[in-house]
């Protein structure tokens, strides 16, 4: 994919001049990667599809503003992350009640008497992780996932989200704190079981 960047610049120039085939080349070349990022952030196939669609629409609308200082893929990735954040905000408002219900369920799951056979099941931990991630604010969730899964530094996350590196670090800290609070007992128990 990296080798595409030189070609990308040519395609951007041609697309700006009105060549729709050139923009098609950009869409075809970057869709898979954008989908993966969108899925990591939204956790839903349907939402990830919407993010991919919206990201390319925005990119097309703002193509004249792309000045080539960063790679096209990096620029598009930022747009996609911001689209995913917007979608999370919308979803957040719509499903606020559901999130509260999920959180209550999660708390109940954590507070239940730990049974080693159940706690040892990593799929349950994985499910709990997903619930905690869903309960984070869009900024916390995005900053954490970009750090944890995509390996971006605080400075890079800051640039992607349009916030200071310190603010992106704090968002990751808050996310980790919430994960610890919710998963601590479960993971420790699971750890003890696997070592005992």
């Amino acid at each position, binding site marked *: 994919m990296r080798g595409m960047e030189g070609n990308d610049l040519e395609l951007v120039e041609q697309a700006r001049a009105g060549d*729709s085939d050139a923009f098609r080349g950009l*869409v075809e070349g970057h869709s898979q990667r954008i989908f993966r990022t969108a899925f990591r952030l939204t956790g839903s196939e349907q939402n990830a599809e919407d993010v991919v*669609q919206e990201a*390319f629409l925005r990119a097309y609308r703002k193509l004249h503003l792309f000045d080539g200082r960063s790679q096209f893929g990096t620029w598009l990735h930022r747009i996609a992350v911001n*689209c995913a954040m*917007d979608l999370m905000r919308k979803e957040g408002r719509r499903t606020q009640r559901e999130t509260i219900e999920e959180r209550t369920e999660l708390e109940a799951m954590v507070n239940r008497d730990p049974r080693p056979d159940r706690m040892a099941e990593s799929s349950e931990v994985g499910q709990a992780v997903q619930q905690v991630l869903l309960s984070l604010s869009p900024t916390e969730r995005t900053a954490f996932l970009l750090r944890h899964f995509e390996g971006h530094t605080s400075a890079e996350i800051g*640039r992607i989200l349009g916030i200071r590196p310190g603010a992106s670090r704090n968002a990751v*800290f808050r996310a980790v704190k919430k994960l610890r609070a919710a998963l601590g007992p479960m*993971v420790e128990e699971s750890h003890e079981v696997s070592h005992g």
Partner: protein
Amino acid sequence: MKSVTDEQLILYYYGEASDAEELGRQIEASAELQRRFEALRGILDSVEEPEIPERHPSYGSAVWHRLAPQLEQRRSRLWDWELLKPRREWALVAATLLLVVGAFLAGRLWPRQQVELAAVGYDGQERILLLTVAKHLEKSEMLLVELANTRDNGEFDISAERQLAGQLRSDSRLYRQAAKQSGQADVAALLEQLERVLVELANGPEMIPSSDLGDLRVLLDEGDLLFKVRVVGSRLREEGRGLKNPASEERSALDV
């Protein structure tokens, strides 16, 4: 020895601690720190990436087919806008003429001011240009910083900012031409970059969702625009102040 915070341990886990070697030694030497770090590692290691659904190799092509009709619609709208372009150019010419005539009339009505302007000479003109552009950059910076710093969710009424962006955009265009003519290529390039953002704001809707502010932040960040505006503005101000001000020199001479 300073106590190690949870935040430092998180940064250490992700390989982003500024003092990683020292922190590593501290963790190795302390059972308590080892316990804390292991607990943190247990949590973070348990956050595994969910399986990402595979997309077919022709996925990009499928995305394009869904996208193409929407782009076509947008192209038609742009074409309409392009048709209006000559009229917009004429509006700009008319506005410039109005400005020139206005300036001429102002000169006639206030002859003293005209004499002062005529007396400023090359250094004076250069000084005025530098300070005016510096002021323009300062105003633009204030507008963009204010918008970029808006962090709330929801929709915003930016009609006032939009109007201001429109004025600044017109000014920017004139200053860019002046900067180009006076050989200040870097200033002209910056004004052109700034103009693109101002055009985007001025032509945008009055109500915008917070997502568009996110886009604005990305846009500003892309070319370090705010940083450049600040640096160039301050340089122009310095240069402008460094040049002679004939009017004030004349006044000083009269004062003596």
